[in-house]
């Protein structure tokens, strides 16, 4: 999996303030409303795909692409709400965002044993260790976001290391989600850094 959020040369302070005070209204609300329905559909497809993978060892490609598109949509929105990127996120599962990129190659075959293992023990060997660490990472991310907010407001620049740290949190949590949703067989690493070139 590859997930990147481009660091812009400069960030708009007007957009920053708009997002901070009205982002919930003009961004989170309309996207959240639609994502809720798409999320229900995604849940249905996940359930269906689980059984298909169990019997055939292959995730139906159309369903897979839908799930990845759904993840991309959510990440586009979160990247904006976390002030990692300017601009308004596109609606839908198909649009391509040049600032927020998620690439997940389609696996021709998936392990049925891992599928069952995740279903029954995913909470144990993924949820608990990653959840525990992500909890503290989330707190640190909030602190970094708060500091970065002021820096962007006064300088119009997002410090690169801060940007990478916040992006890393998104990357880490996305890897865990994708693994638990049976979209990849690769166990998520305990890092927010990019592991694939």
């Amino acid at each position, binding site marked *: 999996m590859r997930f990147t959020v481009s660091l812009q040369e400069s960030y708009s302070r007007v957009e920053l303030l708009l997002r901070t005070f009205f982002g919930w209204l003009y961004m989170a609300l309309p996207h959240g409303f639609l994502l809720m329905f798409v999320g*229900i*559909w995604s*849940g*249905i497809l*996940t*359930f*269906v795909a689980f*059984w*298909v993978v169990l019997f*055939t060892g*292959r995730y*139906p*490609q*159309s*369903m897979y692409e839908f799930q990845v598109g759904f993840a991309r949509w959510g990440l586009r929105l979160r990247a904006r709400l976390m002030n990692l990127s300017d601009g308004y996120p596109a609606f839908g599962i198909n649009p391509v965002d040049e600032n927020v990129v998620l690439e997940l190659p389609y696996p021709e075959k998936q392990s049925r044993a891992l599928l069952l293992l995740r279903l029954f023990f995913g909470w144990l060997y993924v949820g608990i260790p990653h959840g525990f660490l992500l909890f503290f990472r989330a707190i640190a991310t909030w602190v970094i976001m708060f500091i970065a907010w002021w820096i962007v407001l006064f300088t119009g620049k997002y410090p690169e290391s801060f940007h990478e740290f916040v992006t890393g949190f998104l990357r880490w949590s996305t890897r865990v989600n994708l693994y638990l949703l049976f979209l990849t067989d690769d166990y998520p690493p305990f890092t927010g850094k990019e592991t694939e070139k």
Partner: protein
Amino acid sequence: MMDDNSPYLPLPQPDDIPVREKEDAMGAYLMMFAGVAIAIPLPLLNLVASFVYLYLNRQKSRFVHFHALQALYSQIPVTILNMVLLAWLIVCLVNDFTFPATFKGYAIMVALVNLVDIVFSLIAAAKARKGLMYYYVFFGRLSYHQAFSKNTGPEKAPVNSPPSF
């Protein structure tokens, strides 16, 4: 063999159908588990899911269109039976939990219909995954007519033509 005057298009053979289309066709029948998937056992949900699936996939190919249509049509009578059962159940619960024998008979009948529906849907899903056509009684013919008629489907007969010289 199908002659050129047939109102229907030739059927695709398993080897000609991409795996992706076979999987899409298979998925149509599995929408009957939509209610279970999101843990809301409302009969109408499966029908809505089948409809959404048809809407999203009908343009992909006639093979997918046929299976999605058949899956949707087969859901309609089952959904009606289930909804009546649910309504009747609510009435019984409201009336001091009294369940008349007719209700019990109806409930058993609906359970059997659902069982048959599940079995046939799984058979149809497996056939679709292999790229095979599988016809339900009545609904199979109706879906075939709608999906493979020369005047319907994604590649309709051309409407525009060049000017006559």
